């Protein structure tokens, strides 16, 4: 399985990347908001596949759970809640859309033309390691979840706890913002 993934991982990444960009384009160009959400879902699934080919397995599963399981459902709820079809005749795009597309393409070409000269060498990717005192007794190159958890709970403990507080505040804030005022 590992050798198979190593063999086709490169092509798989290119395929999934193309599909992700296709999903993103479907997201921004589709007329119906539901179709946009579906394009977003497709894009997130493809990015999760890209994480798998980059051998970040834990992150891929977290992406599936958080995005496909949580965020897309939330978006679908809100799209159903607000009646988007009522405003269909008002036009999808801003009046400055051609200018915006032009500026983004000019910026893209500029960045690519700079980026084109600074290639990373083909052996620029390495096996995953931890600092020696964290990696005791672990075969970290093969066990992504263990390595990520060691990194998260040893080196990133304070940001992790701050993030949990932020999530709690966001939870309460979302309830306060979205509840109707009469209650």
């Amino acid at each position, binding site marked *: 399985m590992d050798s198979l993934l*190593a063999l086709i*991982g*490169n092509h798989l990444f290119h395929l999934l990347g193309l599909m992700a960009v296709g999903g993103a*384009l479907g997201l921004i160009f589709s007329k119906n908001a539901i179709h946009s959400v579906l394009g977003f879902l497709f894009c997130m699934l493809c990015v999760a596949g890209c994480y798998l080919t980059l051998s970040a397995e834990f*992150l891929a599963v977290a992406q599936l759970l958080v995005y496909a399981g949580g965020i897309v459902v939330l978006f679908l709820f809100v799209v159903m809640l607000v009646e988007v079809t009522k*405003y269909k005749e008002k036009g999808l795009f801003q009046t400055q859309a051609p200018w915006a597309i032009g500026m983004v393409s000019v910026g893209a070409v500029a960045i690519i033309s700079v980026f084109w000269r600074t290639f990373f060498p083909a052996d620029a990717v390495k096996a995953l390691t931890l600092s020696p005192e964290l990696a005791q007794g672990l075969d970290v190159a093969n066990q992504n979840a263990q390595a990520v958890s060691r990194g998260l709970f040893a080196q990133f403990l304070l940001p992790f706890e701050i993030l949990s507080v932020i999530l709690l505040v966001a939870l309460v804030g979302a309830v306060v*913002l979205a509840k109707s005022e009469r209650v």
Partner: protein
Amino acid sequence: MPSMNAVLFLSFLLFSVGVAGVLIRRNVLIILMCVELMLNAANLNLVAFARHSGTVNGQAFALLVMGLAAAEVAIGLALVVALYRKKDTIQVDQINLLKG
């Protein structure tokens, strides 16, 4: 294992599409989704550089970014619902309550 350049290029493309979506669409929900897309592109970059440096820090940080994105979506959608109650629209060019 995909090369570093391929990952960076994909992340760049996704980020550009996200920026274009934020700039051209009128629907607040789609703008929020494009912001999520940009956060995902940044995550892809973090994972790529975690592979490049050989350490796990980038992946741990990408996980933190993912949690933050979830919080941001919850708040953003609550704001959209509150705004829809108040103003009865979610088109950004009609949300001009501050104009006086």
